[in-house]
């Protein structure tokens, strides 16, 4: 019988129905097979499609072409979603984390890219979106999205990380995502900001650009002109498709290696000025408070950092023997030069293998083969970037910055593995 009459949006429902219909036959098959070789073949749920049985999904055609005009993950992956705290005081100015412990490689799928917004996600009609460029500019300009797409384009892979990822105070997160999930990486396409500034004629007195978003926070940050004339980009696409609304559709600023909030989303205005705006987001927020009451301002760069994503907090090693230790390393200052991994509470360190190509200001995947002997262990990684900077321990960071610094915690993250293989945050 064909299943064509049984098209259902929810594949899980469909397969459950099929299972109910066919399970009688399958179980009797299993009993026969079990009797044949003398072992008690499992009739556990979930085993009716494994050898020697023929999987049910081979016995009928699958969903037809066009069942999903925009593809979504398998329903079996329904738990791999953004990690959003259940008890936020409010959800308009809030953040959602990438489930980095569940992902492979270095590119974050667009639907799982971390989010931080201060006034919700605006629904912008791209035909009515404008970028205004003014201030210390020979010719103040207005660009439509069509205009911006006419400029020569470029595509580059870079990470983005929120500056508060994570904060320094307890309670500490349980999973890699809780701790460092305000981190993602994508291939970005757009136009060089330098080229657009040259088009408008930037005046030599311009030392900063004030960037402003077209969201309900009209979020404002000041960008030093050196960065604007270096690798800054006006971005309209991410991983091949247009930016997602959560990522600034239709236009965002990208400042590779700079803290996330400076990469202003829904970008509507750039104003060339002699000094920074000292906006609320660069005074009240996004300044790093030291124990003596002095706050550091304009702390742009995300320093080198790494984290083991597998095995990581909340995961479980189900057996002893071979396990690959893998994770992510990155630096706002350039390329990752080396990642060391310790499996003995930081006493000895081994150099991990870096996935090629190692890109500047992009996530870098590292891997280390490991044999777990079933004993409790503490594992951690330590990144070194091309400037020679070494990722610090949490203790080293706290000794210099105290607990109230809030931003730019790039500490080494140790994971404890207990004798049952359960992985937890060794700092907790």
């Amino acid at each position, binding site marked *: 019988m064909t299943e064509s009459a049984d098209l259902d949006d929810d594949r899980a429902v469909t397969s459950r129905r099929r299972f109910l219909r066919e399970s009688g036959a399958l179980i009797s098959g299993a009993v026969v097979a079990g009797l044949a070789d003398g072992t008690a073949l499992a009739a556990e749920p979930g085993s009716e499609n494994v050898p020697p049985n023929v999987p049910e999904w081979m016995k009928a055609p699958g969903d037809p072409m066009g069942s999903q005009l925009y593809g979504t993950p398998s329903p079996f992956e329904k738990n791999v979603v953004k990690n959003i705290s259940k008890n936020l005081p409010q959800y308009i100015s809030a953040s959602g984390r990438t489930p980095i412990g569940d992902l492979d490689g270095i590119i974050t799928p667009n639907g799982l890219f971390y989010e931080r917004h201060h006034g919700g996600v605006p629904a912008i009609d791209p035909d009515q979106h404008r970028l205004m460029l003014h201030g210390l500019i020979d010719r103040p300009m207005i660009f439509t999205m069509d205009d911006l797409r006419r400029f020569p384009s470029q595509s580059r892979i870079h990470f983005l990380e929120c500056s508060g990822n994570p904060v320094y105070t307890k309670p500490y997160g349980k999973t890699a995502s809780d701790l460092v999930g305000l981190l993602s990486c994508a291939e970005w396409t757009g136009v060089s900001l330098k080229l657009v500034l040259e088009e408008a004629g930037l005046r030599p007195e311009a030392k900063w650009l004030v960037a402003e978003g077209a969201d309900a926070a009209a979020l404002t940050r000041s960008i030093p002109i050196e960065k604007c004339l270096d690798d800054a980009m006006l971005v309209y696409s991410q991983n091949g498709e247009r930016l997602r609304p959560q990522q600034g559709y239709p236009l965002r600023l990208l400042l590779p290696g700079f803290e996330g909030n400076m990469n202003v989303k829904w970008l509507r205005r750039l104003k060339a000025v002699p000094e920074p705006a000292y906006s609320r987001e660069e005074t009240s927020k996004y300044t790093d*408070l030291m124990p003596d009451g*002095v706050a550091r301002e304009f702390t742009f760069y995300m320093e080198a950092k790494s984290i083991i994503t597998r095995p990581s907090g909340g995961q479980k090693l189900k057996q002893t023997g071979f396990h690959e230790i893998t994770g992510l390393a990155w630096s706002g200052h350039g390329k990752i030069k080396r990642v060391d991994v310790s499996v003995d509470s930081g006493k000895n360190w081994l150099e991990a293998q870096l996935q090629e190509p190692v890109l500047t200001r992009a996530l870098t995947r590292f891997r280390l083969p490991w044999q777990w002997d079933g004993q409790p262990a503490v594992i951690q990684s330590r990144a070194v970037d091309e400037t020679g900077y*070494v990722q610090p321990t949490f203790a080293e960071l706290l000794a210099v910055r105290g607990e109230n610094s809030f931003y730019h915690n790039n500490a080494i993250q140790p994971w404890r593995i207990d004798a049952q293989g359960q992985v937890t945050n060794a700092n907790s």
Partner: protein
Amino acid sequence: MPIPKSALAVLALTIVASFARAETPGHYGIGRTATDAEIAGWNIDIGRNGENLPPGSGTVAHGKEIFAEQCAACHGEKGQGGVGERLVGGQGTIATPKPIKTVGSFWPYAPTLFDYIRRAMPQNAPQSLSNEDVYAVSAYILNMNGLLPADATLDAKTLSAIKMPNRDMFTGDPRPDVKNPACEKGC
């Protein structure tokens, strides 16, 4: 007779190509000049010393009314905080283990208050207050922080003149500030 669009485009391209250097600073000829009116409508940022503050004024008393109507639901009756952040108090806590960062205790520049409230508050209806109302509610928040008398009127000049208590407590980025010796063996 209407001229075909394509012919116009070719004409425009030719003109751009031949006069680009003379007419526009760039050489792609993409985008158009922004008018003064367009810029004025969007150029809302206020400098730390009050540059670009608009005309108008508002009293602490009027600000108190606005605050009760439009801000207190999130920030608390007295600015003590709620869904929205605490706006009042905390002076003297910034260098302690439990710092309370507020407009009064942490913000370095008073004109930023006007800038932020006008662009982003009330959170449910940003850019809905008149400039007069933004002056007034800024005045009330400054008053609750002991930085403005109860009978004061705030305008561009008086707002720019306020010296915030925490103003000189900011510094540049000294990083890299933390050193890890990167021990390899027997650490």
